[in-house]
């Protein structure tokens, strides 16, 4: 404890350099915290008791390939399946391509039973959605963003199917990630496609979460030798698969994080090497006063820890509070759910900062602490 004062004074002796180093470490750890949160958000979206009962069936080849909608009834006949809805990604543009948000064509009569966590504001609105051919449900955040009200007509131009869906908002929906999503009738979508009778995915609700594995196997076995074989997986695996259309997201994120980490180690090593070299004479004085090489080494490493930990903690806490105050679900058009920097990520950043401190400082500090006093005294005027 009695050395803390000298450690802090030395750490901040060149304020500009120390602040710049803290900022560079902070920015790097902000980025690493953000990337880790992104990965967590993609790989482990928030689970609800309802979502734990659901699996998603898609074409085995890719998400872009379609399946006959007749699969719906066949899937429903699989033992353990409670209900099924076609869930079709529409990929539409509302007014401007920059107004991106997720739109799904769903079986209106089944959707609210299968996605029980999605709450419509009133039974009348739910009834309207089920009844009206062009009826739609808008997520509450989406409605707020575009100033939509119940009864408004919303036209969405699909970039995938080259059709326009002219829908009317029957109600607003909230909960389970529906806040930033737009839902309309699969039957209407099918009409727009001249009754093509195809669907990209089916969401399957099991009677019990224990049956999910058996149901997935049974569904995929059922269509194994068909023209459109299927792949059935949990919702979280499906979302990650969706993200992987951009490439190997995990490898990409880990690679970027590694490069950032390597760069920050170099920055910190350069700063500490400069700082230590400037103080060769002072190190000689400390050793003359009776400080052992070990205590000199410990003090210099501690200085580095103070700097790196300030940056690491600052960066991670900034990420936590910034992403805590920004609605990432809306910004990502409903794609990212539960995008919150966890305390475990803050601790991880602190751990990385400590590793940065140790790897960047140990060698130059060890070398400096071992310089014979007489040689250090001779060098001090250099």
């Amino acid at each position: 404890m009695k050395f803390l004062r000298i450690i802090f004074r030395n750490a901040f002796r060149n304020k500009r350099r120390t602040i710049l180093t803290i900022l560079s470490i902070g920015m790097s750890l902000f980025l690493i915290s953000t990337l880790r949160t992104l990965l967590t958000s993609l790989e482990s979206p928030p689970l609800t008791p309802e979502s734990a009962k659901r699996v998603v069936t898609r074409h085995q080849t890719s998400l872009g390939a379609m399946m006959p909608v007749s699969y719906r009834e066949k899937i429903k006949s699989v033992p353990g399946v409670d209900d099924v809805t076609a869930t079709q990604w529409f990929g539409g543009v509302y007014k401007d391509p920059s107004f991106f948000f997720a739109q799904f064509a769903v079986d209106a009569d089944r959707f609210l039973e299968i996605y029980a966590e999605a709450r419509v504001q009133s039974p009348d609105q739910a009834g309207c959605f089920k009844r009206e051919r062009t009826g739609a449900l808008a997520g509450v955040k989406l409605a707020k963003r575009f100033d939509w009200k119940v009864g408004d007509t919303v036209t969405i131009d699909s970039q995938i199917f080259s059709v326009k869906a002219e829908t009317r908002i029957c109600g607003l929906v909230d909960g389970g990630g529906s806040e930033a999503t737009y839902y309309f009738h699969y039957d209407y979508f099918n009409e727009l496609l001249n009754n093509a009778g195809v669907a990209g995915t089916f969401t399957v609700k099991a009677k019990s979460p224990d049956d999910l594995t058996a149901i997935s196997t049974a569904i995929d076995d059922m269509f194994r030798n068909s023209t459109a074989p299927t792949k059935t997986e949990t919702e979280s695996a499906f979302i990650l698969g969706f993200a992987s259309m951009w490439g190997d997201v995990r490898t990409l994120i880990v690679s970027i994080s590694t490069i950032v980490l390597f760069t920050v180690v170099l920055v910190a090593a350069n700063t500490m090497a400069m700082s230590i070299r400037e103080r060769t004479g002072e190190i000689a004085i400390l050793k003359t006063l009776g400080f052992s090489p070990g205590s000199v080494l410990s003090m210099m490493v501690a200085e580095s820890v103070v700097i790196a930990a300030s940056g690491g903690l600052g960066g991670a806490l900034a990420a936590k509070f910034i992403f805590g105050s920004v609605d990432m679900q809306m910004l990502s058009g409903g794609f990212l759910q539960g995008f919150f920097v966890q305390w475990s990520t803050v601790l991880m950043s602190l751990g990385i900062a400590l590793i940065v401190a140790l790897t960047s400082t140990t060698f130059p500090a060890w070398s400096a602490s071992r310089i014979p006093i007489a040689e250090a005294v001779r060098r001090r005027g250099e």
Partner: protein
Amino acid sequence: MVAVEIRNVSKIFKKEAQEVVALQDASLDIEAGGFLCLMGPSGSGKSTLLNLIAGIDRPSGGRIVINGDNIAGMSESQLATWRNHTIGFIFQTFNLIPVLTAFENVELPLLLTKLTRTERKEHVDTALALVGLKDRMRHYPRQLSGGQEQRVAIARAIVTDPLLLLADEPTGDLDAHSADEVLAILEKLNKEFSKTVVMVTHDPRAARHATVTRHLDKGVLLPEGVSA
């Protein structure tokens, strides 16, 4: 009583294939409570001898016994602890840690002891009072004159109450007035507090404060009364 016993000590620096003899077969006894001045031209080996006595450099041959301890056989860590207890060293320049106040600079060697915070404060107050700088204890080195800085360095050197005070050209960078102040303090510490002082200097005026003066020339310690 002999405080420092130096027997046949030599120091050879190796630079690539070349060997430079900095000190050759030096033998010397320094009495406890004595004030020895080492003089000689640049490169004569006087600072080398001082560094060897302080245990901050190791001899190539010979024996150095200080207060009964043969320091040649000590490890780095043992030497560090020994220096803390036994030696007070004053450099010519770059003596204080710039980010610490005068008080904190003087307190530094005490951080390695088991003294409490209050006890450390008492020791530092006493040492700074002795060099006449108690009113400057909160000042940083940049806020002090060269002479005041050197007096703080003396306070730091004596704060652990060491047996030996070693000064390497302590007045080399000071004006005449400040130099006189520093020399007066060293003389006071020798006469009133019975500290054994070894001082290296070029300055014959400074040497007048010592009780014994020895000269070195080209690494050879000349007999008493002989100068280069």
